[in-house]
């Protein structure tokens, strides 16, 4: 599915995308953005689910369980905290 050079291309393009997205950000958004990117790597939940779903021995299952639990915490916690922070960004002119 994703192999060799294709994987490398995805990696490179994603890296540039990440760099571009951040490079023109005003300082006031650094913390919310760090928090937002913290939420985005919560996608590790998907991988943790797949790993746990294929676990066979009890040990694998326990580690998988911990992994899914941690990943869910990353995703949900990251979302809640970012959302709360961004909720507070209002302009004095109202509207936007």
């Amino acid at each position, binding site marked *: 599915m994703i192999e060799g050079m294709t994987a490398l291309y995805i990696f490179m393009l994603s890296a540039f995308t990440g760099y571009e997205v951040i490079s023109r950000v005003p300082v006031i958004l*650094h*913390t919310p953005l760090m928090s937002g990117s913290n939420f985005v790597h919560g996608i590790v939940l998907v991988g943790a689910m797949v790993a746990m779903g294929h676990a066979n021995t009890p040990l694998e299952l326990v580690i998988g369980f911990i992994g899914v639990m941690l*990943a869910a*915490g990353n995703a949900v916690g990251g979302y809640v905290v970012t959302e709360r922070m961004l909720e507070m960004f209002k302009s004095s002119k109202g509207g936007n």
Partner: protein
Amino acid sequence: MDSIIEISYFVAAVLFILGLKRMSSPVTARGGILWAGVGMLVATLITFLWPDMHNYVLMTTAIFIGGVAAWWSGKRVAMTDMPQMIALYNGMGGGAAGAIAAVELLRGELHSTTFLTLAILGALIGSISFSGSLIAFAKLQGWLRKPLRFPGQTWFNLAIFLVAIGVGGWLVANGEFSGQLIALFFIMALAFGVLLALPIGGADMPVIISLFNALTGLAVGFEGFVLNNAAMIIAGTVVGAAGTLLTQLMAKAMNRSISNVLFSHFGATSTTEETVEGSMKPIDAADAGIMMAYAERVIIIPGYGMAVAQAQHKVKELMDLLLKRGVDVKFAIHPVAGRMPGHMNVLLAEADVPYDRLYDLEAINAELARADVALVIGANDVVNPMARSNPDSPIYGMPILNADQAKNVIVIKRGQGKGFSGVENALFFGDNTRMLYGDGKEMAGELISAIKQL
């Protein structure tokens, strides 16, 4: 079924990138997290359809436990404690990446050297981020107060790191391995994370949290390759790159390199005690209030002290009062004021201070010279003119807010102690500086009542 999963992951990846993009402008930021959230929801739900999986009940239970605990803590935490929560959630992500690698290694179905290498690398980085972030959390939470330093620390850390790399390399080279070796590998990686974070002092915490954030992203990306999961590869790598850039921006704001933050521990080498001419001159709230009420331009410089005292609401009240009297009030925000870049912005936003009254370093420094009053509340190192004048000072070269150039400076401070860097602050001894001793919130309150009585 496979193609539905693939398409969903693709949609999720697009939503993540668009979400992050929207989060980089104040106007669209609030929608951005929603977009990313939808992407996460889609990806998570569709993963239940992944072929040949079992343990669904336990899996749902794990998601429920982790999710509810994080939801509950995230909703409850005070705005001032946000940095450590980000560290905590980030650490959890790193731990999850490590767990994925552990399961895959134990299953022993990774046969190609490339996959093994990526799994091991992801595990190494994820584990370091996990244990390091937990230490960062404990430090910011105040559970670990003193930075731990001992002679030869850097070499000791390097040795641990090399052992982890060595064991990891052995695992890759041999392909066939025991649980004990895998355990040893993880213990070494986790230990290195702890050792890396332990000596870091308070003022450097934002940089290290951001670095761990980038590392978790990278670890997630690597494990994405192992699991053949495009959403993980893209999201993880995007965060890895964005986080690295953010870390660099932060380190630059303190005029230091990342390796400098990590390996030459702040203040550890400087032993020369500078002496400062002059004395600290106290003022009471009534006089300070008059000074501000009859000023034309007031610039407020908040720092970590404002966060600790939870003074942001009182400060906002003070701003409203001054604005009503026709005083022009602006806020000067140093990039590393507080414990994270933008920490002050978030706190002031919480108190409903409109973000267009907040100015960053470059925008406000020229105006400081024209300000009648610069009110420094709980900031210290970021307004220390020694960063400009004294090449021997450990903070020399750090860009600062030139508060000392304002006509009058009022400093709200709890006592005569030094800042986080342990450096004497020449600003406090200036001829135009008056010290208003007390808790930030209390003193802001007294300023308000003083101005109201005029």
